[in-house]
C-alpha cells in the first residue's frame, strides 16, 4: 500500500524533473530571445508577451536567461555530482574492502574535509582559484566526495562480511573482480540515492558561490548570479530576482523530494 503510493510519487516527481531537464536542454526552442542580447529600448520591462518574465537592467530577457541559466546550473550540478559519486564510491570501496593503512589515511583526509562547514571550505577554495565555474566546481567537489566515500565504505564493510563474498573468495575470485562484480552492484542503490539527494544541495552551493561572485563569469546566465545582479534594483524590477529565485526553489524542491521519495521507497 505504502509502497504503491511512494512509487506513484516517484513517477510524478521524475516526470517533473525530466520536464525541467528538457526545458533547459532545449532552451533555444522554448525561449525566442537571445539570453545575452541587450536592448536599450527595453530596460527593466515588466513581464509582457515579448518578455514573459520581463527584462533586467540591461534589457536582457529574464525568461531566456532563466532557461539558459538553468542549463549552466543543472549541467554543472550533474557533472559535479557524477564525478564526486564516481570518485567517492571508488575511494569508499577501496577503503572498506582493504581497511588498514590505506583506509586510515583516506578517511583521515575525509575527516579533515568535514572539519569545516562545506560552504566555508568552498568559499576559501573558490577564492584562491579565482572566479569561474570550474573553480566553483572544484571548490564544492573537494568536500563532496566525502559523503559518497563514507557511505560506500560502510556498505562495503558490511557487504564484505556477507557469506556470498566468502563464497566468491573460495571460488578463487580476485579482489578487483569481487569489488566490481559483487560489491559495486550491491551498494549502487543506496549510493545512487545519496547522489539524488545531493543534487539539491549542490545546486544551492553552486548558485551560492555565483551569488557571491565566485562562480560563473558574467555575462553568462546563471541563477545565482542573476539574483545577485537583480538584487540592486529589486524595488524597481522585482521580476529580475523573483524568477531565477523561483526557478532555483522549484528545482531544488523537486530534486530533494525525489531523493527523499526514492530513499523512503527503498526503506519501505
Amino acid at each position, binding site marked *: 500500500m505504502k509502497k504503491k503510493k511512494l512509487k506513484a510519487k516517484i513517477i510524478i516527481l521524475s516526470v517533473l524533473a525530466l520536464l525541467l531537464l528538457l526545458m533547459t536542454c532545449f532552451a533555444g526552442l522554448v525561449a525566442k530571445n537571445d539570453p545575452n542580447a541587450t536592448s536599450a529600448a527595453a530596460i527593466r520591462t515588466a513581464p509582457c508577451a515579448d518578455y514573459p518574465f520581463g527584462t533586467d537592467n540591461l534589457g536582457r530577457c529574464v525568461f531566456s536567461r532563466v532557461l539558459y541559466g538553468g542549463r549552466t546550473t543543472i549541467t554543472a550540478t550533474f557533472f559535479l555530482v557524477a564525478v564526486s559519486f564516481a570518485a567517492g564510491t571508488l575511494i569508499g570501496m577501496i577503503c572498506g574492502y582493504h581497511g588498514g593503512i590505506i583506509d586510515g589515511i583516506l578517511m583521515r583526509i575525509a575527516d579533515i574535509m568535514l572539519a569545516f562547514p562545506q560552504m566555508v571550505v568552498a568559499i576559501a577554495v573558490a577564492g584562491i582559484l579565482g572566479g569561474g565555474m570550474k573553480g566553483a566546481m572544484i571548490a564544492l567537489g573537494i568536500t563532496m566526495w566525502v559523503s559518497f566515500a563514507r557511505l560506500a565504505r560502510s556498505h562495503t564493510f558490511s557487504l564484505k562480511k*556477507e*557469506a*556470498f563474498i*566468502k*563464497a*566468491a*573468495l*573460495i*571460488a*578463487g*575470485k580476485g579482489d578487483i573482480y569481487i569489488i566490481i*562484480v*559483487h560489491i559495486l*552492484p*550491491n551498494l549502487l542503490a543506496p549510493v545512487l540515492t545519496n547522489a539524488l539527494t545531493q543534487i539539491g544541495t549542490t545546486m544551492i552551493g553552486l548558485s551560492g558561490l555565483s551569488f557571491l561572485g565566485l562562480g560563473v563569469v558574467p555575462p553568462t546566465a546563471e541563477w545565482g548570479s542573476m539574483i545577485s545582479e537583480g538584487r540592486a534594483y529589486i524595488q524597481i524590477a522585482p521580476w529580475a530576482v523573483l524568477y531565477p529565485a523561483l526557478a532555483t526553489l522549484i528545482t531544488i524542491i523537486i530534486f530533494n523530494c525525489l531523493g527523499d521519495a526514492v530513499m523512503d521507497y527503498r526503506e519501505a
Partner: protein
Amino acid sequence: MDIILEGKKLNKSFKTGEKKTQVLCDVDFFLKEGEVLGIVGESGSGKSTLLRVASGLEKPDSGELLYKGRDYTGSSPRQTGEFLQILFQDAESSFDPRMTMERSIMEAGRGKKDKEELLKLVKMAGLDEELLKRKPGKLSGGQCQRMAIVRAFYSGAEILLCDEMTSALDVSTQAQVMQIMQRLKKEGKLSAVFVSHDIALVSEICDRIMVMKDGRCVEEGETPEVIGSPKDDHTKELIESARKQSIG
C-alpha cells in the same frame, strides 16, 4: 581410508578491547576420505571457529593444517577453495542477491562452464531447472541450501565444510536437505565436516563425532561409541537433553 584433512594443535583467540578470549585451545581433528565427521557443541564452544580456521577464512594463531598430508596453514580461502567448499547456515546470503543462481553457481566452477553437469546436479538435488534463472531472494531457505549443495559439488571440491547448514530451516525442510546429504554419502561422494548444535541430527549422518566445549575437544570417537557410551560429562548432558526431546 586415507586422511584427507587434518588439523594439529590449533589455537585461536579473539581480542575485544582489553579482553582476550581463547576460542580454540590445542584442538586436533582429522577427516578421512568418504567420511562425515560431526562436530557438536553449544554456542561459544568454538565449533564454528574451528570450521572457519580449517577453511582458511580465519588464520590460526598456532597449529598446523594439512590437506592430504600437505601443509596449507595460512592459505587464503582462494587457495583452500581448490579442495574445499563451505555450506553456510544462511544459504540465501551465500548467493549474491543480484545474481541469478546459475551465474553464482557457474562462478564457483573456476572457469568451468558445464551446463550439462549443472543440470544433472540440480536434478539430483530435487530442484527445478527453472529455479536457476531466479535470484536467491525468490527461493525458499531449503531451496537455497540445496542450491548451495549443487554449487559445492559443481565446484569439484573434495571436502564439504557444513556450518549449521540446516539450523535456519524448518524440520521438514531440514529433512529434505539431509536426505540429499544422506544420498550423496551413500554414493560415497561425501567427505564432510558437519558442524551442528543438534546431536540427534549429527548422529543421523556422521560416522564419527567430536564434542566441543569452551574451545576444547572433550570427546571424540565413532558415533555408536559416543552416543552409546559417552565418557565426558558434557557429552552425557547433551545426549540426555536430546534423549528427553526425542520422539518415538
